[in-house]
């Protein structure tokens, strides 16, 4: 085994990217963001979009990619390319956006990407929209949860910090942090059921 110095911004292998996304590794996520965003931004800017739209469409695509990787949809792909995958999702989303804007304004755009006809993707999309509505309701519940609960849950579920670390950060006993996490999830569920029942 040869030894050579490691650099701090070592590019990740595809497998490391997939693994890192699954565990919310911050360096991996940030690296992915920094690699792909400039490409999406230039695509959007060249095709009738602005900076703010580039950011929105890219972040939406980022969340979808993250979700799909977590659901294991890229696991069986031998030649997986996470950056390419994220870029394609962003591009498709932007094309969808152009298509709908087209439809509303009935103005023909002079864009450099070919706008394809709606396909079977549309059917998949409807499922996704239903899914998205559910997610929105849950998101509302989370917004009503209160910041203390939100912090405990996010530190544990997203940042993947241990209960010990969290209890130190919040200055509470480890056992009560654990209990808090349980109560907070219970509360989140109650809120989400209330929102669902009240429409």
């Amino acid at each position: 085994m040869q030894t050579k110095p490691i650099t701090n911004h070592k590019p990740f292998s595809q497998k490391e990217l997939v693994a890192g996304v699954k565990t919310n590794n911050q360096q991996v996520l940030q690296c992915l963001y920094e690699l792909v965003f400039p490409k999406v931004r230039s695509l959007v800017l060249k095709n009738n979009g602005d900076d703010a739209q580039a950011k929105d469409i890219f972040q939406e695509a980022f969340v979808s990619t993250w979700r799909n990787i977590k659901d294991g949809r890229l696991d069986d792909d031998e030649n997986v390319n996470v950056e390419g995958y994220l870029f394609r999702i962003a591009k498709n989303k932007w094309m969808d956006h152009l298509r709908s804007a087209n439809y509303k304004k009935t103005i023909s755009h002079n864009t450099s990407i070919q706008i394809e006809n709606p396909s079977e993707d549309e059917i998949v999309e409807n499922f996704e929209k239903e899914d998205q509505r559910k997610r929105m309701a849950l998101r509302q519940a989370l917004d009503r949860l209160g910041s203390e609960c939100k912090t405990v849950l996010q530190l544990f579920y997203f940042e993947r910090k241990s209960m010990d670390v969290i209890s130190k950060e919040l200055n509470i006993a480890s056992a009560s942090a654990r209990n808090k996490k349980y109560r907070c999830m219970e509360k989140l569920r109650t809120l989400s059921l209330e929102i669902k029942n009240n429409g």
Partner: protein
Amino acid sequence: MDKNPKYISQEQQELFERYLMGEMPIAEQLSFKARLADNDDLSKSFEEFKALFETVEEAALCEKLEDFHSSVIEQKEETPTKTLNISKFRFNYRIAASVTILLAIGGFWFFNSQNSNEKLFNEYYSPDPGLPTVMGANDNYAFYEAMVDYKQGNYDIAIAKWEKLLVSKPENDTLNYFLGSAYLAIEEPTRAVSFLEKAIQAKSSSFRNEAHYYVGLIYLKSGKQQKAVEALNSSELQKAAELHQKLTASQK
């Protein structure tokens, strides 16, 4: 609130969490999936919990994305000044490099023993680059996750993760070797030696040569020349032999 079915127990929640956070060993995952498949109630509460879990996770991700975004924008704005700094740095670097070359030509024996040991250490030491991380649903998942941290230079995080794994596999040579390597990288040589020696003790370890080499380097740095020579002698690595020769030559 009574109109809603009761919330799951704390134990059940923690079971679901371990599954969703990828903390279950593969055998447990399989039996958990089997239980979900033939228990409708369990499957229902799991799906409900999963949706809540994912909401929390996703909201946190969205907040993170905002951070990432501002840092991308900042980087873009900083670029011009950074380039300037780099060219200045390169200029100084050339001077530094020529000084180093002059010193190297002068040879290490001009320095007193302590100083030259330190220099030799710096010349020969670089952290082990780590293993290529392979991904898959296996028990080694946690190990490779820490390997990612290790490769990024986040040695503290890697150490914390590996030490957890060491509890159940105290004799594992790979774990001991990389813990040693990480401790050395954060300049805790005493701890590093004890892990490396543990790795050496393991039967037919594939890290034996590297471990001897690093142990030799640590002794060298702390001025225990004789012990360094012995350790280096036990390593079959080319650079170990090279360093061994230099040390024995300087002893004469």
